[in-house]
């Protein structure tokens, strides 16, 4: 990454507190991150560590209570189509067809900049990118989960966003569909060069797709723990990578962070021991 474009998106000392009946709850603290144009970033961490909150702050759906986010040197403080979001459970409007769902976004973003024919071409182009042209006239309840997620991605891409935010986009899909969509996403990323921030739970997915993996510590007051540069040549091929020592090395690094440094759950054997002990105490 060159230094000139290094400051495309900049998170500085970002923190957020949510008010609760028991006083403010600090979910995030001092999150610092600089993302370059065209970079593919994964956020990984245990459940509840505030990954989604980071994404929502960048999207403008949440407001940081400390620090701030700059996109091209402009502060982010409300949602906007230049930061398109692909939601975890597709969030397509169930009463619109795939085409109409994309159309809603295109009309909103390109109203006055494109004429009707251009819009139509652009919508079809984006559906084609995710290989969904054949089901353009189907409604979400008539297509499979993977296809819905594709349409969700097409909708986000059609906004021509500066940044594509993806909240566990493939989390709810079966392994085969997920692999297929990951490949599609790599293709699209290579073609369009979008900046992408993706939340994931899946270590393989993170290593396969990312330029950098941002690993987050456990909450409360979660923050960036480590950042791993993934220096694998693109285009990447999952089969070839599986045998490569570098790939496994990166994988190992992430696993180590998640299961040693930020271990969340006690190993079962340790749990049993402590239970036994407390049982003994009760008898005594």
């Amino acid at each position, binding site marked *: 990454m060159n230094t000139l474009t290094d400051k495309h998106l900049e998170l500085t000392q970002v923190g957020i507190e949510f008010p609760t009946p028991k006083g403010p709850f600090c979910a995030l603290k001092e999150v610092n991150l600089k993302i370059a144009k065209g970079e593919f970033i994964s956020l990984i961490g245990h459940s509840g560590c505030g990954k989604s909150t980071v994404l929502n702050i960048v999207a403008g759906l949440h407001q940081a209570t400390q620090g701030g986010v700059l996109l091209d040197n402009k502060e982010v403080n409300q*949602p*906007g*189509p230049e930061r398109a979001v692909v*939601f975890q459970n597709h969030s397509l*409007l*169930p009463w619109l067809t795939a085409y109409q769902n994309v159309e809603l*976004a295109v009309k909103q*973003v390109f109203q006055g900049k494109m004429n009707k024919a251009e819009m139509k071409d652009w919508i079809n182009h984006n559906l084609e990118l995710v290989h969904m042209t054949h089901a353009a006239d189907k409604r979400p*309840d008539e297509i499979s989960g993977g296809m819905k997620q594709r349409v969700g991605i097409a909708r986000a891409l059609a*906004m021509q966003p500066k940044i594509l935010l993806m909240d566990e986009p493939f989390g709810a899909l079966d392994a085969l569909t997920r692999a297929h969509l990951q490949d599609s996403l790599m293709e699209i990323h290579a073609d369009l060069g979008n900046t992408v921030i993706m939340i994931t739970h899946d270590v393989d997915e993170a290593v396969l797709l990312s330029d950098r993996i941002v690993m987050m510590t456990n909450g409360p007051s979660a923050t960036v723990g480590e950042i791993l540069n993934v220096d694998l040549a693109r285009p990447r091929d999952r089969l070839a990578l599986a045998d490569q020592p570098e790939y496994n090395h990166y994988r190992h690094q992430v696993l180590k962070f998640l299961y040693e440094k930020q271990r969340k759950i006690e190993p079962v054997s340790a749990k049993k021991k402590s239970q036994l002990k407390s049982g003994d105490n009760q008898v005594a």
Partner: protein
Amino acid sequence: MLKTANLSKVTVLEIKTAVNTDFAKKINNLLLLPLIGLAVFMFLWHVAAKNIDTSLGQFPGPAQVLEQAHTLVDAHFVEREKADAFYLRQEERNAARLAQDPTYEAKIRPYTGKPTFFDQIWTSLYTVMVGFIIASLIAVPLGILCGLSQPAYAAINPLIQLFKPVSPLAWLPLVTMVVSALYVSDDPLFSKSFLTSAFTVSLCCLWPTLVNTAVGVSGINQDLLNVSKVLTLSKWSHIRKIVLPSSIPMIFTGLRLSLGIGWMVLIAAEMLAQNPGLGKFVWDEFQNGSSDSLARIMVAVLVIGMIGFILDRLMLTIQGYVSWDKSAVLR
């Protein structure tokens, strides 16, 4: 060989019987069981009616009611013929006078015969629809406002809770007086009694639609709201593209409840206020006190029930057209 032939025969038979039982089940549920229920009801009614003696004679059984239904239909056609004859005579008279004196300006006088049972049905239907439409035009937008804005809801909710349980009959005197005070016109487009009934219906129709719309709108999936935010939809397109489609089912639940309540309220209001309609028909028959009165009232009761049912089905059909979710089971 023989064995397999036998086997296939058996399976064919089984399939046939399976189809038959399936068909039989459908017939049972759609036709036979309802008919049995109806027959039992008729029998119990018949037996009970024989044993009830009122000051207006024996309580009417199914047979008498059917007979009176025929009388009412006949009376309607007789009255129609009379009306036609009246207009025909009037036309002839006017034509004759016009022939004598070309400057004569013909006056058409309306027929002033007694409204028949079917005229009353029509009046009631028309009144309930007008009252219901007025209420819906107020309740749906107000409900959307309440669902979208917490402050609006906080402001309006106490009023909803206060007025929702009020009986229509408590409103009626007030509405009557207000309509007579405010609707002063030499050439009134609508009769005062019609407006009184319609507004009373409106006042009682408002609440279910209002409450259900507000609940539907405030319960929209957060993900869809986020989509709307990311797309930066304007308030108006947010309502049109996201809010309305996703709260259509709840809005219609409210509308159906409202229409049902409106129909019940109207009959009561017509009875009490002596406003034209089915309620007045029932009250007139009661006051009339002939030996046929109870049977005629029973006809009205059955017709009121049937119309209520048809109105509800009508709303369901409209919901089917409007709603995006055609697969939803509508009951």
